[in-house]
């Protein structure tokens, strides 16, 4: 894995966390209950903490000079973000948010567990080791909500099943390997995505069966996030996220 591949692998880790963290932050003040409002924003803050670590590390690998985590988060354009399409999907209703979180948490947990154990890049291992504890709680939180909603009332069941059906087309992208994933696998930094998929399936199937939900068929899978090709809602989200540092460069409080 060369420097540029490592940099991109770290940017992907940071971008997944940043974009999902930003989406969850949009719930602040809007969640269905005060307790859940705090839960979602806590998760958001965990993710943004992970972002800071991964992007700072990635920022140290730019040939043209060190870039800060803030520069990378707030001054890149949409095409430069390499997050999964899944995490940029709009919040929708609470069920949509929970399904998005659940599908991602299971993946992120397995990925972080691998990175925490590898020795190719000890700094990334340190970040992942801290993240594993956080993501374990996120996965627990989203899993329990999947069961409550899926095995809840007829309305909650049908709505969360629809959320699952709608978001399923964004799950395939998590397991596609490109040159960066392959070099990451060779060096040991990144997990084998084919193997990881099997473990993900077990986690997902276990909770879906407890939630009495039907796992959708794998059909057409939407991809592009890893190449910087994003879905329509992404640009609007990015504009809102970046407006302050772009309007007032160097602003502080």
């Amino acid at each position, binding site marked *: 894995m060369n420097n540029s591949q490592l940099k991109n692998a770290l940017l992907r880790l940071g971008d997944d966390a940043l974009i999902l963290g930003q989406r969850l932050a949009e719930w602040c003040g809007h969640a269905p*209950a*005060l*307790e859940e409002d*705090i839960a979602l924003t806590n998760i958001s803050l965990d993710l943004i903490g992970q972002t800071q670590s991964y992007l700072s590390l990635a920022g140290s690998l730019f040939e043209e000079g060190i870039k800060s985590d803030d520069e990378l988060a707030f001054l890149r354009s949409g095409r430069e973000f390499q997050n999964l399409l899944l995490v940029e999907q709009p919040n929708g209703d609470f069920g949509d948010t929970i399904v998005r979180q659940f599908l991602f948490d299971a993946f992120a947990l397995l990925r972080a567990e691998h990175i925490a154990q590898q020795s190719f890049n000890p700094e990334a291992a340190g970040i992942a080791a801290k993240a594993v504890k956080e993501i374990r*709680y996120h996965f627990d*939180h989203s899993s*329990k909500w999947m069961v*409550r909603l899926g095995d809840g009332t007829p309305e909650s069941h049908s709505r969360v099943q629809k959320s699952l059906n709608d978001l399923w087309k964004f799950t395939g992208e998590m397991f596609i390997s490109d040159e960066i994933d392959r070099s990451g696998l060779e060096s040991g930094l990144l997990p084998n995505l084919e193997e990881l998929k099997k473990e993900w399936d077990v986690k997902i199937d276990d909770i879906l069966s407890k939630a009495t939900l039907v796992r959708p068929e794998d059909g057409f899978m939407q991809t592009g996030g890893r190449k910087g090709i994003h879905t329509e809602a992404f640009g609007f989200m990015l504009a809102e996220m970046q407006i302050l540092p772009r309007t007032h460069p160097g602003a502080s409080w």
Partner: protein
Amino acid sequence: MSDKNKNWPLWEVFIRSRQGLGHKHVGSLHAADAEMAIGNARDVYTRRQEGVSIWVVPADKIIASAPEDSDALFDPANDKIYRHPTFYVLPDEVNHM
């Protein structure tokens, strides 16, 4: 679901802090079940490292003394100063008294 049940039940939250010896009442919250109450308590009351252990108790399971009984319950202790162990000199080795 009837209107009066629209809110999740109320739970009282007790946290044991890192230094503290016992669980201390810190507040209350709403949750649909015990598991969710623990999760919510973690999110609402331990965000700033306030605790290492959480108890949640359904608020309607707590039996409280009635405020109008407080004269009879508590005032008689007012003039029993001999019940306080302040007449003894404690050795330095004894903590937490």
